[in-house]
């Protein structure tokens, strides 16, 4: 395996247990544990099969004691991401999960999903969760974050200040919409993209069609990416 890839996956996995900006290390591991459990939730299976998921009432099969809005967010992100809506998100926030905590939770679910899917594809056992790190979240929200692009405020490249983590410049990232998605918590954005780019391609490689950087070609990579998006009903 490419060293860059194995190191990136290992680093992202270890970071799950580190203290976050809005959740402690132990809480982040609890989110990861719940994300794994969501795949076996009977209510989520029934909702996935229903025309309107909210029409199916009941309780999630949980593995943790996270608050109900966090449980609902994790389960829907894991099991039915293509039908998430702004109304659903607003209800999550209205019932007690802050916007920043939601974004960091989403980042943890995304890393857990990526690493577990990687291991499942390779036929290797799901890895044990890392140990929890010490520390308390500093709950710092970037001052330049503004509403208007997605459902929650986001931090555009031109609004990054010296107090913010270098979420765009550190990876040569242009600041496209998908880069901005997790930017309300810059550290969460960087943890995700520092793992994602070695899995896929770095920005400078994406349109460099004259050279191949992986053991699969540009067209093969883009075909697989498109098929995953179709499977997950993702328009982006």
């Amino acid at each position, binding site marked *: 395996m490419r060293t860059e890839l194995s190191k990136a996956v290992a680093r992202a996995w270890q970071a799950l247990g580190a203290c976050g900006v809005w959740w402690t290390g132990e809480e982040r591991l609890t989110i990861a544990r719940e994300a794994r459990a969501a795949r076996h939730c009977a209510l989520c299976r029934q909702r996935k099969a229903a025309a309107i998921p909210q029409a199916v009432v009941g309780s999630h099969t949980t593995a943790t004691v996270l608050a109900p809005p966090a449980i609902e967010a994790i389960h829907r992100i894991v099991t039915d991401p293509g039908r998430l809506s702004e109304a659903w998100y607003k209800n999550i926030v209205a019932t007690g999960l802050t916007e920043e905590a939601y974004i960091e939770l989403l980042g943890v679910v995304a890393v857990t999903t990526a690493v577990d899917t990687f291991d499942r594809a390779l036929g290797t056992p799901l890895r044990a969760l890392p140990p929890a790190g010490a520390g308390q979240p500093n709950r710092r929200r970037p001052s330049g974050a503004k509403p208007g692009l997605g459902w929650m405020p986001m931090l555009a490249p031109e609004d990054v200040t010296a107090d913010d983590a270098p979420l765009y410049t550190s990876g040569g990232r242009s600041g496209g919409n998908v880069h901005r998605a997790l930017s309300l918590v810059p550290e969460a954005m960087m943890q995700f993209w520092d793992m*994602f780019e*070695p899995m896929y391609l770095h920005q400078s490689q994406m349109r460099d069609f004259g050279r191949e950087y992986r053991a699969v070609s540009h067209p093969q990579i883009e075909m697989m990416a*498109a098929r995953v998006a179709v499977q997950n009903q993702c328009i982006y």
Partner: protein
Amino acid sequence: MDLLRRSGDHSGTDYGLDGIVDGNGGSGVGHEKELLAFVDATITGTAGEIAKARAAVESGLGREAVIDAAAVIAGFDAITRVADGTGIPLEPPKAEASADWRARLGIDDYWTAKV
């Protein structure tokens, strides 16, 4: 899919998108059958189905391709959740450039499924 089209523009190949959406193939991409089966098995299949699909990719493209393909599948299984969990829109130029084939392939219908 936009980057697949651009890749085709570079090589002078007109890759078909329909078969990627409906799963029936015909895109013109090399080893399409093995790679699409690997995607589908990993996202929705059993461990046995994944193992069979993985073996087919390894037979056709080699071990390093299996690893890189697994990484692509894994990365996009996650980034689709990031995109769908934040409500980010397509950038206007991308939306404009893809409007015709998104409508033709039924991808715009994904919006109406959001509840």
